[in-house]
Structure formats: structure tokens, C-alpha cells
């Protein structure tokens, strides 16, 4: 077990970091805001952490924290700028913003290391820290999906006009999700840089948009648990696909395409559907449901899925 843990530590770290990155897209999406600014925030967090660690030798918490603050502030300003946009247009504006940061890094001279990037950002950040931070974030997000704030966010997504007439300040909710998205993205970027000790422009490019988006869509877009499922699958899929050898990329593309087309609510949606059926049948067939609820980050599957069923399933029906 210990052996297994050590040899897969990078993938375990990668799972949690990808999860945070995916959440930085998923949180705005839950409020109906199609923003990829989280990818740009990832770049901000990654470079801030690397620069502070290499030049000032600050503690990881400071290096990552600074990036989170900068990205959150950038998120707020961005939200003001793009207030008029929605849908695909907003998505494209934020992709442009994120990719522009990559060009900025390439042209940043000594500060960002140009095309080579920065390396040697050695720190004391450990896997335990990463997991702790991610779990705290998840608890906070799970809480935000319930209660009055969760309902307000759902209202903003489902019907902005109605939300306004109910007295919800839609623009404020939007600004908030931009700030949270920025903080999450920067946190992921900072932690990844300190764990890998290096960052370069090509590691903060368009592929992150694809990765984060596929995780959310395949996992399920409307809850943190969907992002978690997606993060686990797409972090571990390449190692699982080693056996298909040279056709790995092809299989990856097919998996993404099929999931996007035929599993519209993501795997989380499938699980919830299955769970509901099982519960309906459960009186007749006791104790049959444990295997279905094998969600990768499950604590108590029954409670968790029931909780998730709340905001998403009702809104959809």
C-alpha cells in the first residue's frame, strides 16, 4: 500500500490539483457564467508562486496566497469588464484573456524566464497540504451548493430575469463567482508549480482549457462532485490507457466525444439517476446499492448523493 502510494503520489497530487482547476470553471458555470478565466488565474498563481519562491524564498503559504489574492483581484476586475457578455461570447473573451497571459509570460524577460520558463522553485509543500486545502475548499463549496446561497446561484443560472425580480443582485453573484474562480485557479497553479518546481509558458496553454472542460462535462457540470469524478477519471485515464499503446490519443478523443454527446448530465447524472431508481426499488431489493455509489471521493455515499440530488435534480425536472 505504502509502495503503491509513493509510486502514485504524483497522480494523487495531480488529481487534487486538476480538481481545483476544474472547479475554477465549474463554480462560474453553476451560476450560468461560462468563464475560462480560471485558466488564466492558474497561470497567475503558477508564475506568482514560482517567482516568489525562487527570488524571495518565501514559505509556500505566502507564495500561493499571494497568487490567490492577485488572481482574485484580477477576477473581480475582469468581472466588471465583461459584465455585458454571456454565453459563448463570454467563454471566448475569457479564453482570450487566459491565452494572452501565456504570451505575456513568454515576453516577460528575466522575471518570467521567457520561453524557457522558471525552474528550481523548491518548497516544503507536501501532498498532505494539497489534500487538506482541497478538502477545505470542497467542504466550503458543498456548503455553498445548499442553503439560501445555493438557491440564489441556481436561480441566477436558470432564469436571470426571474432572479432579478426576486431581489437577487445578479451582477453581484457574477462578480463573486469570478473572484472565487480566480482564487481556485491560482491555488491550483501555485500548488502545481511548487510541487513540480517548474513552470513554462507551454504548461499554462490552451490544453488546460480542454482538460478542465472535459473533466466537468464528463463528470457532471452542476456539482463539485461531478468535477471530482472528472478529475479522477482524466488524471488516471492516461495510465489506464497505456495498454492501448500508440492509439492512446485516439481512445482519449473517442471517450471525450462519446461522453459529451451521450452522457449529457455527466457521470454524476448517471449515478444520481441510478441511485434514485435503486431507492425506488430498494424496498424490494435491500442492500443492492453499494456498488453503484462507488464515487471516487465518497465518504458516505448515501448522504452525499442525496445531498447532491437536491439542487441539481430538482432544477432539471
Amino acid at each position, binding site marked *: 500500500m505504502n509502495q503503491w502510494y509513493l509510486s502514485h503520489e504524483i497522480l494523487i497530487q495531480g488529481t487534487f490539483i486538476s480538481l481545483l482547476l476544474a472547479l475554477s470553471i465549474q463554480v462560474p458555470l453553476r451560476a450560468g457564467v*461560462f468563464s475560462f478565466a480560471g485558466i488564466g488565474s492558474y497561470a497567475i498563481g503558477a508564475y506568482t508562486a514560482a517567482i516568489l519562491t525562487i527570488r524571495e524564498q518565501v514559505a509556500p503559504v505566502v507564495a500561493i496566497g499571494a497568487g490567490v489574492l492577485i488572481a482574485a483581484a484580477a477576477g473581480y476586475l475582469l468581472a466588471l469588464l465583461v459584465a455585458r457578455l454571456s*454565453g459563448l461570447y463570454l467563454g*471566448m*473573451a475569457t479564453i*482570450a484573456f487566459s491565452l494572452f497571459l501565456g504570451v505575456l509570460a513568454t515576453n516577460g524577460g528575466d522575471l518570467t524566464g521567457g520561453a524557457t520558463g522558471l525552474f528550481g522553485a523548491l518548497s516544503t509543500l507536501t501532498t498532505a497540504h494539497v489534500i487538506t486545502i482541497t478538502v477545505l475548499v470542497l467542504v466550503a463549496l458543498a456548503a455553498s451548493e445548499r442553503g439560501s446561497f445555493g438557491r440564489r446561484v441556481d436561480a441566477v443560472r436558470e432564469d436571470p430575469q426571474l432572479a432579478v425580480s426576486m431581489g437577487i443582485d445578479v451582477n453581484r453573484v457574477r462578480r463573486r463567482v469570478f473572484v472565487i474562480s480566480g482564487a481556485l485557479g491560482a491555488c491550483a497553479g501555485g500548488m502545481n508549480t511548487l510541487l513540480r518546481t517548474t513552470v513554462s509558458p507551454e504548461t499554462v496553454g490552451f490544453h488546460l482549457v480542454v482538460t478542465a472542460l472535459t473533466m466537468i*462535462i464528463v463528470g457532471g457540470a452542476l456539482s463539485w462532485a461531478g468535477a471530482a469524478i472528472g478529475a479522477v477519471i482524466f488524471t488516471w485515464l492516461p495510465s489506464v490507457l497505456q495498454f492501448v499503446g500508440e492509439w492512446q490519443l485516439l481512445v482519449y478523443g473517442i471517450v471525450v466525444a462519446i461522453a459529451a454527446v451521450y452522457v449529457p448530465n455527466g457521470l454524476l447524472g448517471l449515478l444520481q439517476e441510478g441511485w434514485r431508481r435503486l431507492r425506488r426499488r430498494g424496498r424490494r431489493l435491500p442492500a443492492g446499492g453499494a456498488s453503484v455509489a462507488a464515487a471516487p471521493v465518497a465518504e458516505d455515499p448515501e448522504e452525499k448523493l442525496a445531498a447532491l440530488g437536491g439542487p441539481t435534480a430538482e432544477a432539471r425536472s
Partner: protein
Amino acid sequence: MAQDVLNALTLGSLYLLFALGMSLAWGTIGILNFAHGSILMFSAFSAYLVVREVALSMPVLLLIGAAVGAVLSLLVQVLAFEPIQRRAKDHRQAELQILVGGIGIAIIPLAIAQHITSSVPFGYSGGTFRVDTYDLGFVRISNVQIVTLVAAFGLAAAIGWWLKAARPGLALRGIGVDPEVSSLMGVDRRRLALLTMAVAGALAGLAGVLLTYYLGSIAPETGDAFLLKAFAAIILGGVGSIAGVVLGAVILAGIETFVLVTTSGTWAPAIAFGVIFLMLLVRPNGLLGRQEVRRT
């Protein structure tokens, strides 16, 4: 100076060729196809596989490219985008799924072409067409450059006319403005969507073959590199407006050429991103887009 203008126009015509099909599908039936670049590349690649065996002329290769592009595009529509639109609970959900589905589908032809070519560039040196360059004193222009320019602006004009004057084009524009009402008016949306995707795919195929002729060779990754540029051109000109795409492509190419000529060029990649971002902030409907056509 004259040479720079000609170069900018040529680059603009390459962007235009790429963006035309994308813009057509997005502006009318609301499908932003991220597999467009992949279809373009694979059409050019299919033509290469043929010309490697038989020495063919340019028109034949263009036909092959257009046919492959149309078939691929139809396949994508039938196998992926139609089921998505049928099942999605609302428009926004469908949009997102089409985006991700397109990204996934784009990987498939790319992986196949990468595997066959080992990412080595391919070209049509096996064909019968030969490049000639003419020195006119104030500019140098090649025969393939002329073909590219004529094809890009000619196709744009033809598509523009088709949308304005032909019956299917009119119906398409109707869908672009209000899908529900046009359905009530007896427009068969499914058939029209298939037609549009076939035309968009054929345009991608033509563009791919022309691009390969113009650049001499392309690599499997070439299609993706053009995607964001085409996107910038469409946003700049305005979604749903063919004249807008023409304008957007030429302006984007003009700015890029200007930056390349006057600076050391390391900031050139930022131009497309900057154009997308600023344009969306200042005028989200683009230079020539109209309010009612805007789809969100």
C-alpha cells in the same frame, strides 16, 4: 509597401478560407464546431494520401478535399451534434456540449494523421501543379497566391449571395434570426442543418487543400493553429455576417502583418487574443453583426 499589403491580403485570405465554414455554421444553425480545423486538416491529408499514389491536378485535389470535408462534417453532425441538440434540456447546455464534443471529435482525425505521418509535414509535390512566381516590379506574386486570393474572396462572395438570394439561404438566415418562427413557416430545420454542415465541411476541405498548396506543406497540427485566428476574425467582423468575416480576416491579417513588419514579432501571438477580447468588450456584435442575429 505594396508587397506588405499583398502579403496581408494573402494571409487574410487564408484566415478567411478557414473562417468561412465556421462562420456559416455558427451564424445560421448556431453550431460552433471546434472540430472544423481537424476536418480541414484531414481533408487535405486525404488528398495527400491520394496524390502520393497518383499524380493529379489541382482541381481534382480540390474536389477530393471538398468531398472528404463534406462527408466528415455530415458525420459529425449526424453522430454528435444532432443527438446533443435533441437531448439537451436547453440551448445553453447544448452549446456547451457541442463545444466539448467538438474538442473531443477533433482529436480523432488528428491522432490518426499524427500516427500515419509521425507529425512530419506533408505536401502535394506528387501532384502535377507547379508553383511559378511572377515579378511585377513593385510586387512578387505566385500563381498559387493568385488562386488562394481568388478562391477566398470568390467563395465568400458566393456564400454571401447564396444566403441572400437562394431559397435555402434565406431559410437559413431565418433560422439564424428565430428558429421557432422559421419552423412554423415550414422550414425543415434538420435538412437545412445537414445542408449547412455539408457546405461548411466542403469549405473546410477546399481551404485545407488550398492551404497546403499555398504553404507548400502542412502538419497534422496545422488545423488547430488556425482555429483561434479564425475565431478572432469572426468575432471581429460579427457572427452571422459573411461580409463581416471578410472584413475581420483582412483586418486581423493587416494588424499581424503590421506588427511583424515593424517589431521583432514576439508579441504577434497576442494580437488575435487582444482583438477577441477588446472587440467583445467594446462591440460584442462585431463590426458588421446585427443585434438580432447575436446568439448567446
